[in-house]
């Protein structure tokens, strides 16, 4: 067990093992997502009240779930990096940022597009949309920190400082949600419940589950893929990295 944890301290090991893992996860992801998309778009029944626009749930909810999950993952990675001083955690955290931000963006976009046929407006200051909007800002701020801090101080210190912000952010997320829900309950009756469709029949939530799981797998694959190149760029002077780069450059020619 200790040896396995010790391995994570080796950039070379990570670089080698991340390839088969990302490929496996990508294969699983593509199967699940294609199934989920087809099922959700064409085969699942439409909602009685919302009609066909209900199908947007199959992209909106998975994006929102992943957006929140990935932020928590960045915080967890940051904590591990701070406590055990494993450099790979910062590489992985940086690899998550573009993907996590993409998911928040998609959640907001699809939420708005779902809102128009359902509520007659693209934007609604309800608890969920507002919280998601602030999640976007949390992501953007953290990403900016990961990019800008290394320019002003030693890289590892920079990444650790960014990790602390991620941790403060993750602790604040439930607080933000709670406060926004309270704020919202004052000003609006709770008529708009976007995804609270209780007792959805299996035909409706099964493709949703497929999409969520598929998206998790895809995220894993993409994060690993991205992390490999970030790592190689960081460590390019190391001898193992030089070997890998030689192989790559030869393949290109």
């Amino acid at each position, binding site marked *: 067990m200790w040896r396995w944890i010790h391995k994570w301290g080796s950039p070379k090991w990570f670089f080698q093992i991340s390839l088969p893992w990302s490929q496996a996860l990508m294969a699983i992801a593509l199967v699940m997502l294609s199934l989920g998309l087809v099922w959700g778009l064409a085969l699942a029944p439409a909602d009685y009240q919302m009609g066909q626009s209900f199908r947007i749930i199959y992209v909106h909810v998975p994006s929102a779930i992943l957006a929140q999950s990935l932020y928590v993952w960045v915080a967890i990675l940051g904590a591990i990096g701070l406590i055990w001083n494993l450099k790979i955690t910062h590489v992985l955290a940086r690899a998550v940022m573009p993907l996590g931000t993409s998911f928040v963006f998609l959640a907001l976009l699809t939420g708005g597009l*779902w809102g128009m*046929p359902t509520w007659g407006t693209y934007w609604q200051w309800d608890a969920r949309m507002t919280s998601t909007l602030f999640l976007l800002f949390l992501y953007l701020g953290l990403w900016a920190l990961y990019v800008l801090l290394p320019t002003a101080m030693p890289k590892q210190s920079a990444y650790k400082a960014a990790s602390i912000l991620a941790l403060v952010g993750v602790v604040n997320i439930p607080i933000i949600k709670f406060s926004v829900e309270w704020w919202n309950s004052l000003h609006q009756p709770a008529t708009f419940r976007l995804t609270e469709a209780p007792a959805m029949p299996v035909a409706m939530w099964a493709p949703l589950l497929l999409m969520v799981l598929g998206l998790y797998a895809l995220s894993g694959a993409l994060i690993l893929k991205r992390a490999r190149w*970030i790592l190689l760029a960081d460590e390019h002077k190391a001898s193992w990295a030089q070997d890998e780069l030689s192989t790559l450059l030869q393949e290109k020619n």
Partner: protein
Amino acid sequence: MPFLSWAEFWAMGGHALYVWLSFSAFVGVLALNMLSPSWLQAKLCRQERRRRIRARRQESSS
């Protein structure tokens, strides 16, 4: 089967714009994310190639 014809499928009960825009944005953004690591790889290779050429040049001139 909720759709009786292709035409109905594309029309999405009048919500075609919203549904198709959502799904295409979803696929599009994810596709970008799938391509992005390859761009990182290409950039890294380009930089490394230039570094090696520079190193060889310095070696041969010294």
